[in-house]
């Protein structure tokens, strides 16, 4: 078991290394993508900054809280696509039969497929998250530790959600638009203060749409440290991961493959 985990970490490390090597073949494009993403994300912040010049608190959040909210959403999103850039293409792999080559290798099929691509611009998202943490004045030892921890758990939860949506392709065939809508839903909610939503939405956030565990609860922990809540966040991440893997692997039995010309680019 431990050997397996070690082997998978080594594999992920190799993927990151070679994906970076691949992208850095075209250096200008590489840097443009990263800094472009940081600028793009920054533009949203101006809007919030203008609002907070007139009010101090929105939905229970101060401006600094909103910075952390955006920061966490951005770096969780970034980390997911740095490590597992193919997760959002997975339904396409399922339909077009491109899973074949990964089934023929001994590594876990989900991790192996998803890690084989890196979304370069996601480095911009990850870095942006930490820039916001600094702007919020919380870049101390405790802040950096909590932020990193929640980036990892948030990323696990977001990854699981996308994996789950894409795995539905085994059952439903084409899920292209469904998965995009739900993905956008998640990201939209992840960038507004929790307090502005009513109870129905809050119930959703802690069940079907896991924004609560990936973003809102962590922000509360930032303001009021609680070990119990941290454990709850970690547990929620693991449960989501477990469910999404389960759905993928039971779907895999229905996999039909196909003959398609392919090259790894």
């Amino acid at each position, binding site marked *: 078991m431990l*050997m397996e985990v070690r*082997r998978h970490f*080594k*594999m992920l*490390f*190799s*993927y990151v290394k*070679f994906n970076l*090597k*691949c992208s850095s*073949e075209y250096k200008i494009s590489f840097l443009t993508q990263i800094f472009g993403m940081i600028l793009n994300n920054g533009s949203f912040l101006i809007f919030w900054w203008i609002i907070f010049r007139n009010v101090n608190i929105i939905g229970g959040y101060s401006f600094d809280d909103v910075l952390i909210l955006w920061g966490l959403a951005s770096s969780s999103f970034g980390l997911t696509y740095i490590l597992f850039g193919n997760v959002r293409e997975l339904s396409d792999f399922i339909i077009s039969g491109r*899973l*074949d*080559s990964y*089934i*023929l*290798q*001994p*590594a876990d099929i989900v991790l*192996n497929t998803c890690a084989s691509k890196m979304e370069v611009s996601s480095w911009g998202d990850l870095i942006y998250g930490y820039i916001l943490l600094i702007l919020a004045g919380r870049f101390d030892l405790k802040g950096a530790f909590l932020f990193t921890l929640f980036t990892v758990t948030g990323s696990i939860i977001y990854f699981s959600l996308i994996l789950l949506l894409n795995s539905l392709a085994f059952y439903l065939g084409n899920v292209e638009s469904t998965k995009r809508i739900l993905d956008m839903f998640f990201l939209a909610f992840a960038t507004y203060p929790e307090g502005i939503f009513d109870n129905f939405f809050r119930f959703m956030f802690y069940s079907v749409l896991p924004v609560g565990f990936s973003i809102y609860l962590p922000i509360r922990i930032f303001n009021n440290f609680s070990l119990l809540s941290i454990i709850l966040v970690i547990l929620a991440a693991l449960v989501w991961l477990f469910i999404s893997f389960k759905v993928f692997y039971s779907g895999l*039995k229905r*996999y*039909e*493959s196909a*003959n398609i*010309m*392919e*090259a*790894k*680019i």
Partner: protein
Amino acid sequence: MGVITVKDLRKDFIAAKRKGFLKREYLKIEAVRGISFEVEEGEILAFIGPNGAGKSTTIKMLTGILNPTSGYARVLGLDPQRDRKKLTYKIGTVFGQKSQLWFHLPPKDTFELLGSIYGMEDKELKKRVDYLCEILEIKDLLDIPVRKMSLGQRIKCEIAASILHKPKVIFLDEPTIGLDVVAKKNLRSLIKRINQEENTTIFLTSHDIGDIEKLCKRMIIINLGQIIMDDNMKRLKYNYDNKKIISLRYAEDIDFNLEDVKILSKTNNAVKLEVDMEDRDIDDILLKLFKLGKVEDISISSRPLEDIIAEIYSIRGEV
């Protein structure tokens, strides 16, 4: 017990046919209809058939990609679906139309990545890469990005990538597709060498009859999901090769009138015939041919294997 054992293996696909906005009709497509065979250790087996015969589906069931609808399949004693992980360490696959190599990176990097996927230690990996460089002659290619290679060079590296983990069985699906004559010849001798050096069992599918003729001692022909022939190559030729092609060129124009022979082509002084050996003696025919005039050139050949196989496809395809 054989390396591969298959008993009454079946695979059905369900295809939906739209009959209206909500109404659908379901069609059952029987891709593989109960095939059985066995492959021994160290054997090079040709598994052939026309397009859509069920070759790929069978390979995909044997390698754990597809779940069979029913039947029994064991590769090296393992159930390809249940023991997928264990099996991946012991089998290698080369699909001529799919690539394992990273397009923008040199093969060395892909090998390192594969090493990490197969959990190989660095030392072990280096030793294996050195060995493969020697037998596949790819030492000079290790540092060149794959996108800059010729197809022949790429396929060699592709094969190295597939046997990096020392598989006991290799599935080769159209390995020589698109290669020129020299590259094909090289590749065939490499496949033979891999088979001999490590006693690797090779399961080969190809539309290139040359591959089969040069490499395999045994051949399974599948069509419409059923095995229509499972025989050794010599016997196959013996059984089906009862026709000879005779070409003759005479010194002068001749008047050609022989009975019971099929004339394939004819000019004033040359003729090409097909003779069925079942009801004719070759010396009898030759004698008659020589009597017609002074012969300048003659050649007698067997029918090409390609024709024999095409005939089997068409005769037995209607079962």
